């Protein structure tokens, strides 16, 4: 059995499989299916400084090998997370990664202060949510703004590693990655969802009440692999790769492209056990290839 542990921004994960923010709530629902300690880490549902009720429904539409969502960061706010959800997550032997979105750089700073004091293992800074008007994606598409938010987060994270989640909705993702690296980020996670739209031809209405949303699922895997590959060559930060992972081979592709760990999201909806299957699939691949550690996959692609 190969060593399944990996390091991400100095944090040791017992295995390379994390669940993606926004697909796992705060873990309570899926804790009915298995011990959350089986997971390498949990990226908790995205938090904002104040509670948000999110967007009107319908918030989901199925597409060829994918889904569109426009939840709009519904969450109880960072204080409720710290008081009510973090203690629950802390019962499990896994790394807890808080995910934050702000309307201003200052809001990111305030949330980092609160979360680092509360004791999370890592903070994932979301500068790429396609479903909210303020902040969110705007920070993720302009290098100077991405850098400003990263600096502010780092300044207030009190040593807790800061991982910045990048948007694929840009012309050149490496520009943003470099800006974020220059601003002191400890790791990158990518990709967030790709903006998309589906229309009901009979009613001529978009399925989503917000008209557009973010695409995820197997349809985006090749985009994620390509972007992880490009970013891994442009910066030296460790990468949490995600986008359409539903089996070990998908995760291995992202790792070969340069990811140190991978996140599973949309696959959970059909199969709550998907993250464990990805983990076991990765172990099989590593064993089959005679690796002593799964981490040897990272960056191992042999490009033509």
């Amino acid at each position, binding site marked *: 059995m190969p060593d399944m542990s990996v390091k991400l921004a100095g944090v040791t994960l017992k295995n390379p499989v994390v669940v993606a923010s926004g697909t796992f709530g705060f873990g309570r629902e899926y804790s009915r299916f298995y011990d959350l300690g089986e997971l390498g880490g949990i990226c908790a549902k995205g938090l904002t400084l104040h509670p948000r009720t999110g967007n009107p429904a319908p918030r989901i539409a199925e597409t060829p090998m994918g*889904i569109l969502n426009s939840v709009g960061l519904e969450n109880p706010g960072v204080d409720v997370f710290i008081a009510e959800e973090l203690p629950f997550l802390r019962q499990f032997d896994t790394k807890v990664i808080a995910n934050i979105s702000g309307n201003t750089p200052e809001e990111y700073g305030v949330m980092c202060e609160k979360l680092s004091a509360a004791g999370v293992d890592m903070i994932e800074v979301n500068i790429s949510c396609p479903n909210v008007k303020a902040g969110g994606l705007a920070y993720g598409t302009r290098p100077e703004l991405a850098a400003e938010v990263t600096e502010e987060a780092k300044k207030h994270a009190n040593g807790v590693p800061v991982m910045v989640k990048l948007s694929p909705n840009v012309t050149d993702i490496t520009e943003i990655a470099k800006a974020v690296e220059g601003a002191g980020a400890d790791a990158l996670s990518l990709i967030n969802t790709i903006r998309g739209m589906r229309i009901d031809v009979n009613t001529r209405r978009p399925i989503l009440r917000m008209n557009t949303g973010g695409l995820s699922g197997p349809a985006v895997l090749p985009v994620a692999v390509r972007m992880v590959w490009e970013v891994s060559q442009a910066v030296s930060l460790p990468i949490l790769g995600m986008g359409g992972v539903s089996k070990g081979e998908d995760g291995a592709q992202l790792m070969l492209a340069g990811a140190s760990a991978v996140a599973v999201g949309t696959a959970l909806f059909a199969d709550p056990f998907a993250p464990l299957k990805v983990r076991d699939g990765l172990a099989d691949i590593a064993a089959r290839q005679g690796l002593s550690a799964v981490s040897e996959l990272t960056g191992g692609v042999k490009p033509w």
Partner: protein
Amino acid sequence: MNIESKCRIVEMTRLDAVTFWMVLEVGKMVEKRGLRGGQFLHIKCGDGQLLRRPISVACAVPDEPEDLATLIFEVRGEGTEWLSRRKVGDELDVMGPLGNGFDAAQPGRYLLVGGGIGVPPLMQYGECLQWPRTAVLGFRTGAKAFPAITSRFQDHCEQTCICTDDGTLGRHGFVDAQVRDILERDRSYTAVLACGPKPMLKSVAKAAAEFGVPCQVSMEERMGCGVGACLVCSCGMKDGSVRHVCKDGPVFNAEEVDWDA
């Protein structure tokens, strides 16, 4: 707690071109997990569909060797189309029981109000509720009032009123007019239990409120995970909060729902 299982189809009947009656062996989901009508099962519909489909339970009864659940569904898209092509003996990947179902524990008299494909989730209440009840069942047209379903109400309810939008069977018109007439004569019902399209639920909730009768409504929304983690099936509430149809519902107290959300 294992809520994912393989369930075998033991009966599959086509009621019309788009409506199917399916009976599943569901292990001991009724006896051990309390599966009942009004809850739903989240069913994987082939490898081509990424998302499961939530299908309401019409009736769930203990049985040997396995408990049985009756699902009555309409083909609405590719997922339910796949489901409609399954045969007796096929196994389905099922998550459940999920959702809450109606609360009819309080002794009294109940008024059941169903519209279209919202009728089946009330079937078990029509057939088995231990309290006296009246049923108001609405359909677009008489051909949609399948006797296999309506007889379950007619045989067990004190009174069963059928309404059709086009007047081809029973009363001509929507169910809320019938509900108003019934409550006008007698408002001593413990609760109205309603399932159907949202505009129908809204008007039934309004009628019940006018007569001071508590009303429970079963809401429908596009779902993702089915367990309350992905937050897509939101339902706006009057107090400004948001709840989720899969986990907090599908049945809500009508007066708590923001009907204009």
